[in-house]
């Protein structure tokens, strides 16, 4: 970086802002539309700023005519448990793949990659039948269990841990730290940036998942956040654009908050890995 000279910095900001527009414009339109009357949504003469506001109606419709708050609570619980389970199962496995030598390591890695290639839709039906036979449909268990392990997390954490210096692990072993201790006191804290990154992927994916919940759940009390949006979406009788976008904004907001929390871990991680 050329410190002191301003030109390249301004240039970089200019380039970045092109990306900013591409990234943010759909959200901008979502929020703007949630603030104005449905009729104004497609009014091509006021694309970027509302001429008719309808904030209160849109948001009260979204919050009060649907069980959206309940759906959000379901989302927090389900995504939280899924994330904890995924980290608990993936981190040791990733550590083993990255740092331990054992028979079948190559085979395990190849299997993990192949499992990543299997689309969830393909295994959904057998999983559904299995859960039905155990009489576990319509439960949080059904919503959570298929995602208790994430091959994506294993791959991502293993890749990350490969860069972790072997010397530190060796030194810890010589100091008499048990393998469990290494995992708990060295690997876990060192993996925080990767875990934070993975957490964002995992939570965003399951927060917005509509496919699986609609298969295993027929009980409205267990419905996921995104379903709140569908109450205003209909090819059959026309979308109610204003409340629809209001519901979408409400559903997106917790994810943004979650990102802000994870982002701090991101920054912490940076200072901790300057060990090499």
């Amino acid at each position: 970086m050329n410190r002191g000279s301003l030109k390249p910095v301004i240039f970089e900001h200019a380039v970045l802002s092109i990306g900013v527009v591409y990234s943010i414009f759909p959200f901008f339109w979502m929020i703007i539309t949630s603030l104005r009357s449905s009729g104004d949504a497609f009014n091509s003469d006021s694309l970027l700023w509302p001429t008719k506001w309808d904030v209160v109606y849109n948001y009260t419709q979204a919050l009060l005519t649907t069980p959206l708050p309940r759906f959000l609570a379901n989302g927090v619980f389900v995504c939280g448990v899924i994330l904890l389970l995924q980290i608990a199962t993936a981190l040791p496995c990733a550590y083993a793949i990255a740092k331990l030598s054992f028979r079948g390591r190559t085979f395990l890695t190849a299997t993990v990659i192949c499992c990543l290639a299997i689309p969830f839709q393909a295994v959904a039906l057998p999983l559904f039948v299995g859960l039905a036979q155990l009489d576990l449909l319509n439960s949080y268990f059904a919503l959570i269990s298929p995602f208790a392990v994430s091959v994506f997390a294993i791959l991502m954490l293993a890749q990350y841990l490969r860069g972790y210096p072997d010397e530190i692990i060796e030194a810890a072993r010589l100091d008499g730290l048990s393998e469990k201790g290494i995992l708990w006191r060295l690997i876990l804290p060192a993996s925080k940036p990767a875990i934070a990154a993975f957490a964002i992927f995992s939570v965003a994916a399951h927060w917005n998942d509509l496919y699986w919940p609609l298969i295993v759940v027929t009980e409205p009390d267990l419905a996921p956040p995104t379903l709140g949006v569908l109450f205003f979406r209909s090819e059959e009788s026309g979308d109610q654009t204003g409340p629809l976008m209001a519901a979408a904004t409400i559903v997106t907001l917790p994810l943004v908050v979650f990102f802000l929390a994870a982002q701090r871990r991101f920054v912490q991680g940076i200072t901790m890995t300057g060990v090499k």
Partner: protein
Amino acid sequence: MPIVSNLPKAALIAIALGCTSLGSPLSAMAEDVTLDVMYPWPESKSFHEPLAQSFMAANPDIKIKFRLSPPDYTEATLAIARGALTGDLPDVYFSGYSELNAMVETLSKRKQTVPLTPFIEAEGSDWISENFGQALLALGQVDGTQYAIPFNASTPIVYFNADLVKQAGHDPDAFPKDWDGLIKLAQDIGALGNGISGMDFSVGAIESDWDWQATVLSLGGEMVSADGRTVGFDNQIGLDAMKLLQRIANDTKMNVAAKASAYQQQFFAGKLGFFVTSPSSVANFTKTVGGRFEMRTATFPIAAKTGGLPTGGNAVAITAKDQKHRDAAWKYVKFVTGPESQAFVARSTGYMPTNLKAGDTLKEFYAQNSTYATAFKQVGFARPWYSYPRGNSKEIWAAQRQVFDQLQRGSITPEDGLKRLVDATNSLLQN
């Protein structure tokens, strides 16, 4: 782990089920019945909930419990197929007319179907004829057996922007009733410029062959031959239909859309003269348009004297396992298809009522709300929405819509288009 807490819950349910099967006549509550009801389209909550409320007020011994609503008719059929697989069906189910075949087929494999014949007979000989017309009633039949009673019904109507019609120098009160008039009007609206289009009738843009069936039936044609083995539009009427669709696109410089939402959005933006869709949207569209322009509706042009229109919507079926639930379910079916309920649904959506007596109740409402009345004016033209056997309709449509897309873009002639359409449909009809 918190998830484990669900295991005892499952165990509790198992115990509870065990107890009820032993039977405890002591409790008066045992007389109460809870009906599991499933309807597609989550947004339909707006009229299903109030109906259930008033039903429960009138029948305190029956509780209505709604299942999570599948996002559309197809997903609902899948939910039923899964329910059949695991023996976890709802008690009452609202099936799309075009999906009714598939439902009966799936359920009959495990002998889970519930024909309504005994219930109807128990109501006495006049009950059916007093409440339902034969044409509509046929929508709930599969192979001559009544499996469901029509609940929502709609035939395609025209939605137009009266302001644009005026600007183009036409009279909204004398909206054209034939295609020649509509095409002329669309040309004049399209000539206004400023990104305004005249009309959109992209037959291949919607997820079903509803618009195509409307075109064929309104010209007096049939979807299949009398023996049901080949298509019914491999004739002059079919060719006329193809020519008409291409002429509409060519003469009005129509944007051939890939999805219906494209022209709906353009209409809401005030940049489209008119288009065709279900009257069930009247209430929502009115809200969406707000006061920015005057939205009105008109009947679909029917060219032939014997012409008709395919009826969309859904019918309510009973899928309960035991007699007690079936009896309660029948009460609910009768209630939601009754005159009061039907009038209520018609007022809050735009659907036409399926119950004959509801028409009387709605007379005044229709007189005051002409946008809602259009659908009712077409009741006499309502014909079944033909659905191909063995649940093939969706696959046949996937093949057909590509032909319509090319036809309306002008990349094939109506003659070639018809030949491809007939070949593709017949080969899928016979395999």
